[in-house]
């Protein structure tokens, strides 16, 4: 990455390098997920398997907190679907930039995570495919390894929230957002998205405000010459 935070290159290796800072943050989050799941009685194996097959911090924290609060399988699954519903518009956005037939593209689409998606976003509607796939690799490894450390060490690490680790996610999204605020249109989109998201929080299930805020992207149609 250069000083502006933009990846210096477009290939798999450049993607992996660009993904490294996010992999560090992801490892930290993985530890806190492992600790939380262990405290909730998931044992050691289930949290690690969960991180390997779900690969989504926000959905996994939602699931753990709902099951932990006595919620059922249906409620936990539904919450994860809402939280991850943003991958529907994100998948539509990257689809034309992936390679191969539908199945190959659907498989490559599994490697879409927030940071990689934003890093690979060229800002003109296209995405750097190799950069996106490369950026996910270190994050995926860090997520599983972090979860394993948290699940094994469990309570010995103390309360992750007291350590302030829960702000890694929003701070990390703020870094990515700063890259996107290039002109008046992107600022207008951000302000509208923020108003929609916060306005819906008291009324909609978690995850839905974020998906609804994606509608602010329709401002992209406005005044485009």
């Amino acid at each position, binding site marked *: 990455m250069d000083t502006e935070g933009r990846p210096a290159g477009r290939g798999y290796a450049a993607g992996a390098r660009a993904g490294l800072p996010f992999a560090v943050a992801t490892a930290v989050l993985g530890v806190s997920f492992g600790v939380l799941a262990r405290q909730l009685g998931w044992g050691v194996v289930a949290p690690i398997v969960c991180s390997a097959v779900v690969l989504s911090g926000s959905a996994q924290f939602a699931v753990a907190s709902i099951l932990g609060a006595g919620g059922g399988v249906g409620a936990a699954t539904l919450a994860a679907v809402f939280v991850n519903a943003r991958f529907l518009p994100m998948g539509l956005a990257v689809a034309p930039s992936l390679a191969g037939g539908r199945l190959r593209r659907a498989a490559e689409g599994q490697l879409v995570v927030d940071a990689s998606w934003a890093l690979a976003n060229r800002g003109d509607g296209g995405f750097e495919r190799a950069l996106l796939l490369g950026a996910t690799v270190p994050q995926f490894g860090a997520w599983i390894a972090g979860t394993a450390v948290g699940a094994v060490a469990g309570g010995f690490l103390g309360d992750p929230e007291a350590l302030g680790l829960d702000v890694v996610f929003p701070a990390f999204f703020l870094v990515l957002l700063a890259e996107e605020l290039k002109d008046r249109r992107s600022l207008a989109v951000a302000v509208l*998205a923020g108003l929609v998201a916060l306005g819906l929080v008291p009324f909609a299930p*978690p995850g839905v405000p974020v998906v609804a805020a994606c509608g*602010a992207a329709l401002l992209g149609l406005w005044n485009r010459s």
Partner: protein
Amino acid sequence: MTAVWLTIALVAAASATLKAAGPLLLGDRELGPRATAVIASLAPALLTALVLVDTITAGRRLVVDARLAGVAAAGVALLLRAPVLVVLAVAVATTALLRLLAG
């Protein structure tokens, strides 16, 4: 424990389906200029919502706590052109310090 494993399987299947849907639907078709314009504006919308929801909400409530101070400090570090890891460290340290002081 059965509930945990069942939930993991269902959530994994649902996430994979959500991520596969776009590529399965579109295949190798190119999008028109209008769709491309909307996609180009998707990132600022999505990231703004993620930042705000993770910073000042808890469940269905708007909450101002140590997280906001941490993310604000990260914003200052970003304006000072600090590297990504420093920005994240500033956010974590600020939030942890405030929680420590609040006891």
